[in-house]
């Protein structure tokens, strides 16, 4: 259930971050504070970014910050940080406004979360709604209301 995968407390609206490294840190901070993963997970994301580039920037405006399931993860959970000012991950991927952080204990426990991410960010108007969110509750509500599989 999506309700088990995201909390209002892990949704954040923030003015800006200095650079992509701070973006990764900011995105994962609620999950670390919540005990879902450790700093080792952040290090794993940084290492994988060095190896593969920012593989998690999935649309012009959204990054799904995550590494593989092994690295310091104890609970499957999502967090979402909306930035008022965009951050650049590369010269091309320079307009990211929504940081969805994901940590998962296996390859399938986060399925409902991915359904919500997919539903929201494959739809320009829903992506716009999340970028325009001004409160954590608005972000949370969008995830909850978009968790059903649609054909």
């Amino acid at each position: 259930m999506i309700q088990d995968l995201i909390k209002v407390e892990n949704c954040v609206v923030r003015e800006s971050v200095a650079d992509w490294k701070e973006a990764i840190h900011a995105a994962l901070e609620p999950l670390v504070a919540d005990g879902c993963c450790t700093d080792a997970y952040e290090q794993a994301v940084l290492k994988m970014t060095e190896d593969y580039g920012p593989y998690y920037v999935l649309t012009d405006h959204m990054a799904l910050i995550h590494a593989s399931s092994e690295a310091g993860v104890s609970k499957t959970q999502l967090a979402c940080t909306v930035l008022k000012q965009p951050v650049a991950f590369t010269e091309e991927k320079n307009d990211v406004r929504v940081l969805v952080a994901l940590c998962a204990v296996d390859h399938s426990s986060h399925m409902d979360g991915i359904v919500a991410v997919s539903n929201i960010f494959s739809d320009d108007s829903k992506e716009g709604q999340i970028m325009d969110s001004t409160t954590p509750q608005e972000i949370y509500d969008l995830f909850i209301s978009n968790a059903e599989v649609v054909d």
Partner: protein
Amino acid sequence: MANIRKIMCCCGSGLGSSLMVQMNIQKALKNLGIEGVEADHTSLSEINVKSADLFVVGRDIAPQLKDYPRVVVLNKIMSMVELTEKLEQAFAIEGDEIHIGQE
């Protein structure tokens, strides 16, 4: 029609885009009326050329599969339109090699 029974979606972690693409493939196959094809997702480190009949990946990691004979590369990982088009092309190919979107 190409003989494709199993499609594997891969990304660096095996958690994010690969799962998303797997779910989109299941939708796309249904829309195309193609039945009896299994779709799965995993990380790059867990695949070899025999893992599936067709591999679907994002542009970022496409170079890692440059020696694979059957690959579909997506520019926009979340685009159902692009995915559906490219899957339709893949299934229409006669012969053993499928290279769609590869540079």
